[in-house]
C-alpha cells in the first residue's frame, strides 16, 4: 500500500520534471527576434536620435546587452558608440538615479 503510494509520488514528480523541461525548451524556441538595425529596412543609428537610443538603455541609464535586445554585434558596437556620444553631449544621462 505504502509502496504503491511512493511510486505514484515518484511518477508524478517525474512527470512534473518533464513538464518543466518542456516549458524551458519552449522558452528557448519562443521566438526568433531580428536585429532592428540590420538589413535593408534597418533603422539608422545616430547619436542625436535619443528616442531610439533610450530604448537601448535601462532605467538606470546603462546600456542593455545585445543578448536581450537581439541587436547584431556590429550594430551593437555602433550603438554603444552613439550612446557614448549622446552622453558626452548631455543628451542622455550617464546615470539615472
Amino acid at each position, binding site marked *: 500500500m505504502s509502496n504503491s503510494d511512493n511510486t505514484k509520488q515518484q511518477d508524478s514528480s517525474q512527470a512534473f520534471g518533464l513538464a518543466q523541461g518542456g516549458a524551458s525548451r519552449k522558452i528557448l524556441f519562443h521566438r526568433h527576434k531580428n536585429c532592428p538595425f540590420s538589413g535593408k529596412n534597418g533603422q539608422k543609428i*545616430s547619436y*542625436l*536620435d535619443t*528616442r531610439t537610443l533610450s530604448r537601448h538603455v535601462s532605467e538606470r541609464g546603462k546600456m542593455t546587452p545585445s543578448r536581450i535586445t537581439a541587436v547584431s554585434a556590429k550594430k551593437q558596437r555602433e550603438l554603444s558608440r552613439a550612446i557614448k*556620444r549622446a552622453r*558626452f*553631449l*548631455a543628451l542622455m*544621462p*550617464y546615470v539615472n538615479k
Partner: protein
Amino acid sequence: MRYYECTVILAPELSKQQVSEVQTELSTIVESFDGKTSKHEYWGLRSTAYPIEKFTRAHYIYFNVTATTEAIIELERKMKIREDVLRYLTIRVDSIDEEPTVMMQAKLRDETRKEGRDRDNNRDNNRDKGHNSKDTKESA
C-alpha cells in the same frame, strides 16, 4: 577636404543673437582655411541630462563642415579658448546629409503640432460659440 559634423554646447547666459554671432565666428574660422560650413541648426535652450559646469540648461548649435584637418584643428583650438563654449564634439563623417537632423525635425514637429493645437482650440471655441448661440436662440 573632409566632411565633419560639429555640435557645440554654449553657455545659457547668451542671448539668441549672441548665439548666432558665435555661429558666424566659427564659420569664418573654417572659411579662412578655404573650408565651408552648411546646415546651421539651432536646437534652442535645451535642458541638459546632467549639469555641465553647473549649468542645467544650455544652447545647442550644430553644423556641417567641409574642410581640411588644419581648419578643424584651428576650430577646436579656438573653441577651447572661448569661455562661452561649454563643450563641443566634432565627428568625421563619410558624407553630408542635407536633411535636417533628428533634433531639428523634432523641434519643427513640435512647432507644427503646437500650431495645429492652437488651430484646433480656436475651431473648438468657435464651434462652442456657435453651439451656444444656437442654444440661446432655441431658448428664446
